[in-house]
């Protein structure tokens, strides 16, 4: 689960990492009030779960309440990489003398948390990593060794950080970042930039924070941070029905069991010359209830012209899926042509059930490839 900047900063602050004071606003008036309360110059920052806010005009300086209101009006409603701005973070403006970069990531490859630190922080960190790899210090942490002070020293000395006062502050922040990472079951914590003010104070000016979904049961206060409205409405509807659905831009609706098989189905549709309208994984279920839910979500997309139902029975039994399809077709009126491919556990029985009922718009095909071609044809 990805957190907004302001949520990540809230967690940072909870673990003792210094951040600027700020307020959340969802309207221009709230933004003005926040600026009033904070006093002085403030930054109005779009809260979106994507990068590139700055370039998109999502971050603006404001002097006083009226200016903050004006800037908020400009930012609210902006579309930043498909994310519409509905929330703003108004925080006291910071003067920036230096910009560093500090992150701690769950490195799946090494199977260890990985610290990365460089004094060349700011926007183009990937460029630093590519062009000046020595400037970016990487250090894995063994989960049993845990955080040890030397790791912080390796980061600061490795990056050539010379100022003793900065060293001291950053050593502390590094330790607290590890505590935050482990303490929240994070998959990623990133501070970019980690700034030094002209007065020499080090603090986190931004936050990227991703928490392991599987561990949210241990962190109810973080689970509550989930912003359901940030998810596209059709995906939200699907999630409420326990169906994994992602909208795409084509005309062949896809329904399958298992993420790998569904992805493969999208690919096969593309190879057959069609465009998938969505990714939709039934998971282990295949009963009427699940099929109805999924079909409802898929057919709500007006672009959908045909539906490809691709199931490989394992735990899921094809006869059950066949009955589910028929029951679904009884309960809801679907005019779309539906192409079905069933294989695996009880596939013959499933095909027999469909053949017996044989609704007009149902086309059973023997192989995944044949079915894909047919679905593409029918969508044309």
């Amino acid at each position, binding site marked *: 689960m990805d957190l907004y900047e302001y949520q990540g900063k809230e967690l940072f602050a909870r673990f003792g990492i210094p951040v600027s004071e700020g307020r959340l606003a969802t309207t221009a008036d709230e933004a003005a009030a926040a600026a009033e309360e904070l006093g002085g110059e403030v930054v109005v920052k779009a809260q979106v779960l994507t990068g590139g806010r700055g370039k998109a005009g999502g971050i603006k300086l404001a002097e006083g309440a009226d200016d903050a209101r004006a800037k908020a009006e400009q930012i609210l409603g902006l579309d930043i990489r498909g994310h519409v701005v509905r929330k703003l973070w108004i925080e006291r403006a910071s003067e920036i003398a230096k910009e560093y970069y500090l992150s701690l990531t769950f490195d799946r490859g090494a199977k260890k948390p990985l610290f990365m630190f460089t004094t060349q922080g700011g926007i183009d960190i990937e460029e630093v990593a590519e062009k000046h790899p020595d400037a970016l210090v990487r250090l894995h942490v063994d989960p049993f060794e845990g955080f040890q002070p030397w790791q912080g020293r390796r980061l600061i000395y490795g990056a050539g950080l010379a100022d003793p006062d900065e060293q001291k502050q950053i050593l502390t922040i590094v330790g607290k970042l590890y505590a935050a990472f482990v303490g929240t079951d994070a998959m*990623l914590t990133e501070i970019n930039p980690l700034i030094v003010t002209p007065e020499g104070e080090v603090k986190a000016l931004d936050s990227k924070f991703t928490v392991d979904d599987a561990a949210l049961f241990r962190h109810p206060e973080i689970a509550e941070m989930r912003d359901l409205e940030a998810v596209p409405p059709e995906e939200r509807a699907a999630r409420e029905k326990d169906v994994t659905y992602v909208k795409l831009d084509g005309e062949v609706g896809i329904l399958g069991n298992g993420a790998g098989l569904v992805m493969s189905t999208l690919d096969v549709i593309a190879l057959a010359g069609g465009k998938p309208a969505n*990714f939709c994984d039934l998971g282990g279920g295949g009963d009427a209830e699940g099929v109805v839910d999924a079909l409802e979500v898929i057919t709500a997309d007006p672009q959908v012209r045909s539906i490809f139902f691709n199931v490989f029975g394992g735990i899921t039994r094809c006869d059950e899926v066949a009955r589910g399809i028929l029951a679904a077709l009884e309960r809801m009126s679907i005019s779309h042509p539906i192409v079905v491919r069933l294989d695996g556990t009880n596939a013959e029985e499933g095909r027999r059930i469909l053949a017996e009922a044989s609704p007009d718009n149902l086309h059973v095909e023997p*192989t995944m490839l044949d079915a894909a071609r047919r679905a593409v044809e029918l969508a044309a």
Partner: protein
Amino acid sequence: MAIIVDNDTRLVVQGLTGSEGRFHGLRNRSYGTNVVAGVTPGKGGQDVEGIPVFDTVAEAVERAGANTTLIFVPARFAADAVYEAVDSGIGTVIVITEHIPAHEMLRVYTYVRPKGITLVGPNCPGVLSPGKANAGIIPAEVFAEGAIGLVSRSGTLTYQIGYELAQLGLGNSSIVGIGGDPVPGSSFIDVLERFQADPETEFVVMVGEIGGDEEEKAAEFIRDRMTKPVLAYIAGFTAPPGKTMGHAGAIISGSSGTAQAKKEALEACGVRVGTTPTEVAELVADTVGTRA
């Protein structure tokens, strides 16, 4: 031979008395797997259709000679179950349970791996060695016996490919579902290494998908360390690009994680990549034919 599970497997099912554990435990036994015990704390002394249930894995090892465990316990208790198995002398641990927190699996992995124990999963369909043993939820009837090793991050997609192979008369030495969790107990490389060493395996099919860089690493391993032919399939060419937060992920792997990038990495290491499950099976048939 085969790998991970075979005729020497003496399986204990942790969580045998739960609905999933019972269903698959019995199904594995029906297939011919030597299911010697179940473990459910507090239910020691009971049995599940003749399979004795113990309170602890230690008893399953001592009294029933279990050497492999299949874990179905709920996510919150799964790490405990793995620790118990490993500390009780179990040598092969297969974890079906999904939604185990990544940090918890990280500690489990770090604890288990240096002991030389085989850990497969979590969040995986298990391991099947056709004709010998099935430990997990893989529908064995789809697969035939043969010389093709199959390793995959995906469940149903694996069945699809196994099915396509069987349609062409080709069978498998072992099918290993490594799961798609952030900390898989066995990686592609771990399994490829075993297939390379397994005299019964002549050919390997690797089924990957988008995300991470395990396929890229496997490509190098295949180039540098494998003499047996390997063919790959990657799912997700048409998948929407994943949203990833921050820059750290991309910096770490140096890979975009897309199917195209993986395909290119594999081909650069001399590994052919099939475009559909059907094509994969046909390519295997061609290659096996070529070699025969």
